[in-house]
């Protein structure tokens, strides 16, 4: 059997889901026998080298680059999997979609971080705006709000054991139904 090709990416996430994937520990060695890794933060491939069987997405979309990369993954992957709370529902960053009594929550977040405080040196009172930085979206989106997603794994992060069991099924071409005990929205 030829090896399946997997690509992974972290969009607006914290790398926790990638770390959870590494938490399969010794099983990484086993994984390597049936899988080849295409572009991923864990290696030095910056772009897709060819079409992939599975794309694992960590994180939702909070800036324009996240959207481009997600669309790129959709184009290049047979099966697109949203891994973890941020990818499936936006996760913790969606706290900036609604702040109580706030008219413009994103503006409030930027102001709090960069403006008007004795702890911050910002003589021009500017929020980072260089063309090298991706533009922020009006709000944070889950992956399924941006592209078609084939499978979702909840959890913050989903445990290494869960990722392992799901991956084994996906590699066989099955979309496993998760038992209620495996579905954790923490």
């Amino acid at each position: 059997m030829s090896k399946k090709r997997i690509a992974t990416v972290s969009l607006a996430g914290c790398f926790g889901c990638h770390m959870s994937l590494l938490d399969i520990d010794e099983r990484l060695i086993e994984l390597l026998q049936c899988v080849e890794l295409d572009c991923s933060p864990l290696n030095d491939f910056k772009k897709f080298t060819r079409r992939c069987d599975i794309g694992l997405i960590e994180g939702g979309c909070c800036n324009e680059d996240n959207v481009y990369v997600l669309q790129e993954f959709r184009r290049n992957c047979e099966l697109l999997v949203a891994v973890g709370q941020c990818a499936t529902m936006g996760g913790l960053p969606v706290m900036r979609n609604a702040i109580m009594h706030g008219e413009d929550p994103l503006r409030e977040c930027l102001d709090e971080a960069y403006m008007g405080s004795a702890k911050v040196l910002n003589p021009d009172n500017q929020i980072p705006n260089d063309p090298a930085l991706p533009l922020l979206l009006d709000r944070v989106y889950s992956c399924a709000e941006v592209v078609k997603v084939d499978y979702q794994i909840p959890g913050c992060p989903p445990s290494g054991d869960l990722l392992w069991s799901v991956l084994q099924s996906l590699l066989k071409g099955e979309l496993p139904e998760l038992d209620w005990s495996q579905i954790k929205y923490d």
Partner: protein
Amino acid sequence: MKSRKTRVIEIEPLTRVEGHGKVTVHLDDEYKVSQARLHIVEFRGFERFIRGRLLWEVPVIVQRLCGICPVSHHIAAAKAMDMIVGVDQLTPTAEKIRRLMHYGQVMQSNVLHFFHLSSPDLLFGFDAAPQRRNIFAVIKEFPELARQGILMRKYGQEIIQHTAGKKIHGTGAIPGGVNKNLPLKTRDALLKDVDQMLSWAKNALEIAKNYTLEHRSLVETFANFKSNYLSLVRTDGALDLYHGDLRAVDAGGNTIFDQVDYRRFNDYLMEEVRPWSYMKFPFIKSLGNLDGWYRVGPLARMNTGLCFTTTGSMKTIRSAIAI
């Protein structure tokens, strides 16, 4: 006529690092490097998120800054919440559990950096083909070494799981203490593997030492630059991975400030906003924003610590300094 336009080389995304970044190298008319910039391209807004939240939520919210070092953020927030609930002294058990949690964190994160992310550069060289520069090639070509790295990271993660409740984004530290103890059975199970971990760690240190000796001219010039250093140290100046006061030294090892209560960090440190990164640029106030930048982390801790108190560590450090 020659174009006045600067040329910019982009390296994006950065891989095998902890975080979202890209590098741009700006060239002048003669194609010489005029600026090299590391852009942190992620902005989320935690500073605002935690305002108005219940105080027990803060340690579980802010740890989501980073899934690689969540425990450090978790504990920093718990310490801040300790002050709010008026706890200036943890119970001895609570302090030990939190300490152990953070030791697990430091172990898994350093192992991740050394084995999973950096070891391909040490084993295959910077110029190796991109296909080889990853942990999976290390598994293929140095299976035993890769296995050691994987099991050492696992050990650190298991310590975190037993003290925080989960390997990533646990809930162990709460305002005023911790919410679980370490059963003796678990403690003994962890102790059983300590000697093995220590011997593998020494083995890894040997790899780094030999690499340094064999590539002396590269190590002396590549990414070698002078800077200030900052870390927490104990009252007696010893290295500490959980608690202490702030100590900053300059490139020559001279003290900039010492034994500063960390709760007064705002009096000594400040952050600058620059337009090309969402990350702010911290600096030591007394040195100003241009000269006051400093390094933190393992190297800084080696340079700020006056002594090291674990078995054999003083000898190890001396031999590293000798090299």
